[in-house]
């Protein structure tokens, strides 16, 4: 019955790992060739892969795992998806209903464990609840502010066969996300923008999940607004656009942080003012009236005080705002003239401290690798990252042009996310180039998935920015802990070239700056999984950097 329902939900791929408590579903899956099953090597990777699939395609990712350790292994992946509002449905097997609570073999309280890290979860205790619950699971996962939903299905429920009716639509009386914004609030927002002298448009991941990128671009271009992005918002506005100031926050660009610190109106769309974005909250955009559009009311007024709260879908809210802009009938020239001085100031900041790094003839600089990669791929690739320095260098130096091309764990900051997420992204986008930018630390956290990627014949390119350190922690220790490098140096690292070869993939190692460009060119031509082990300057840092808890204007620049 479960598989029948998944077919009705038009699920075409499942990321999973079999076990005793899901063997009945797997038996059905065996007879269902129209659903592709990707056999991972660890359940955590299944959730990350479904997550990467969802982020890159906009569809719901589906995971199938067994009870007990199967379900506990998915926890990190579920929490990752939850923090970044990614729609996935995780189906977990459970011991038969009669045994629940008896400490049966491979029993664990899955709904109890996952309650705080899911948008919602269900334990199905009666067969008649199965169709409606699964319908609700998919509905809840993808509507409103998206998020992961866990459905725990006991073995005896899976075994029950029979006719069932699958509801076409579902209504939940206690769950009614607000999509349509309050028009009075939109008007207020417009008047603030009209009176503004130094406005900034800040966009977050909500813009991407709502599919509101076109509206963002139209609004920014019509009103001549500078655009800053959170990590999750990258790609929501073209990174190569003149009006893009790139990423703000702890590792944001100097000019992005300066623009926000000095603006008088901040229009935030689909962002949640995370501490990595605001730095010291009291010093965040101190002069600004803040307009905040978000579908989740809890995001508004949580961290910063908002002057014009707007609860609604980002896309619909921006459409309404654009309608008012149209009615107001101010010519483009008006906005251009109005913010001329503001743009002059921003350009001074841009010229003063552009993103930069020092080249070195002996060492490969990681920023250079990313820059070259951007040039060679023309910004057309899907880039997954791990977490740490590799992630920040990618966010700063790869100019994401399109939504859903940066696949990164923003909120939870999960090391080991990138590679399995890249697997999911490649499955969802078989004709696109998918690259995982990794560190030597993170890649080892889910390295076993090389087998999965090879089995699925995925031509993912893994680029390890290898400095032999847990680089981000080392950087903090260097700057704030008197260079006491406490357990951040790996004295043993695998030979990644041999490791790649052991799995039947291609491994290449480079150590010199002049090797970067030709090698990147070479690997981009290979239609097979490649690990490129790039030995970078071991103590290179990520800059600019705002120390934790400081104001975003207190940046360490180089």
């Amino acid at each position: 019955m479960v598989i029948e329902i998944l077919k009705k939900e038009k699920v075409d791929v499942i990321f999973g790992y079999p076990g005793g408590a899901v063997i009945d579903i797997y038996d059905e899956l065996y007879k269902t060739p129209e659903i592709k099953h990707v056999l991972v090597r660890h359940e955590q990777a299944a959730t990350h892969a479904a997550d990467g699939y969802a982020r890159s395609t906009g569809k719901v990712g589906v995971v199938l795992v067994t009870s007990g350790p199967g379900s506990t292994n998915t926890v990190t992946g579920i929490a990752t998806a939850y923090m970044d509002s990614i729609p996935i449905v995780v189906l977990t097997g459970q011991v038969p209903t009669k045994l629940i609570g008896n400490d049966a073999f491979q029993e664990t309280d899955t709904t109890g464990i996952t309650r705080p890290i899911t948008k919602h979860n269900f334990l199905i205790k009666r067969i008649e609840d199965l169709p409606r619950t699964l319908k609700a699971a998919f509905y809840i996962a993808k509507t409103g502010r998206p998020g992961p939903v866990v459905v725990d299905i006991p073995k005896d429920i899976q075994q029950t066969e029979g006719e069932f009716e699958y509801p076409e639509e579902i209504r939940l009386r206690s769950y009614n996300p607000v999509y349509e914004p309050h028009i009075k609030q939109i008007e207020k927002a417009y008047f603030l923008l009209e009176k503004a002298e130094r406005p900034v448009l800040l966009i977050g991941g909500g813009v991407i999940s709502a599919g509101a990128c076109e509206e963002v671009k139209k609004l920014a271009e019509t009103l001549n607004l500078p655009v800053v992005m959170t990590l999750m918002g990258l790609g929501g506005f073209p990174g190569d656009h003149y009006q893009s100031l790139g990423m703000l926050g702890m590792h944001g660009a100097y000019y992005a942080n300066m623009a926000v610190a000095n603006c008088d109106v901040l229009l935030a769309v689909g962002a949640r003012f995370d501490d990595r974005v605001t730095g010291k909250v009291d010093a965040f955009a101190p002069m600004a009236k803040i307009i905040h559009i978000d579908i989740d009311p809890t995001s508004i007024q949580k961290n910063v005080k908002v002057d014009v709260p707007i609860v609604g879908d980002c896309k619909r809210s921006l459409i309404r705002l654009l309608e008012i802009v149209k009615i107001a009938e101010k010519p483009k020239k008006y906005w251009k003239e109005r913010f001329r001085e503001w743009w002059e100031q921003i350009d001074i900041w841009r010229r003063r401290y552009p993103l930069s790094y020092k080249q070195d003839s002996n060492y490969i600089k990681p920023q250079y690798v990313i820059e070259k990669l951007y040039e060679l791929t023309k910004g057309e690739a899907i880039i997954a990252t791990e977490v740490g320095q590799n992630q920040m260098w990618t966010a700063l130096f790869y100019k994401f042009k399109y939504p859903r091309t940066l696949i990164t764990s923003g909120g939870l900051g999960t090391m080991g996310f990138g590679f399995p997420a890249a697997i999911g992204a490649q499955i969802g986008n078989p004709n696109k180039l998918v690259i995982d930018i990794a560190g030597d630390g993170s890649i080892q956290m889910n390295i076993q998935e090389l087998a999965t990627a090879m089995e699925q014949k995925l031509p993912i390119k893994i680029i390890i920015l290898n400095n032999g350190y847990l680089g981000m922690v080392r950087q903090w220790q260097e700057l704030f802990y008197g260079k006491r490098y406490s357990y951040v140096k790996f004295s043993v690292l695998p030979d990644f070239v041999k490791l790649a070869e052991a799995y039947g993939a291609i491994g290449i190692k480079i150590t010199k700056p002049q090797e970067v460009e030709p090698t990147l060119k070479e690997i981009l031509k290979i239609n097979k999984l490649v690990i490129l082990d790039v030995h970078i300057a071991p103590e290179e840092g990520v800059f600019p950097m705002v120390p934790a808890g400081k104001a975003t204007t207190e940046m360490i620049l180089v």
Partner: protein
Amino acid sequence: MEEKRHALSVLVENTPGALARIAGLFSGRGFNIDSLCVAETLDPTLSHLTLVTHGDEQIIEQIIKQLRRLIDVYKVVDITKEGNFVEREMALIKVRAEKENREEIFRICEIFRCKIVDVSPRSYILEVTGNKNKLEAVIELLRPMGIKEIVRTGIIAIKREKKTT
């Protein structure tokens, strides 16, 4: 900002785990629960909770929004904010009742309209109903007599209707 006590009236789906979700929300986000009372409503598919918490305005706003965000939560009303309301709590108090203080306990009961619901040779069980202040007054007066045990229900509250139409 000033911290205030708020009574929230919460209607939730009568499903397993709904209460755990609410309790988990409070512990996970560091909010306080001062008192919590749960029971069925006229509609057996919904449960009603009276939840008393405290915090400044921003915290209370977050608590209400976070509660509403839970899929199982049907409705949340801040009754303290809505104006006039009736609040009640019940306590069962087991108090030492020897010859010399039985009279006094009796008098206290009379004044506060308590009921004596159980009598044993050396103790009474009192049933007290009222708002928080009344309960505390009774407890203070009984304390010198020797309170053996107290069980309280936690607060329930309901909004008053408008006096004019």
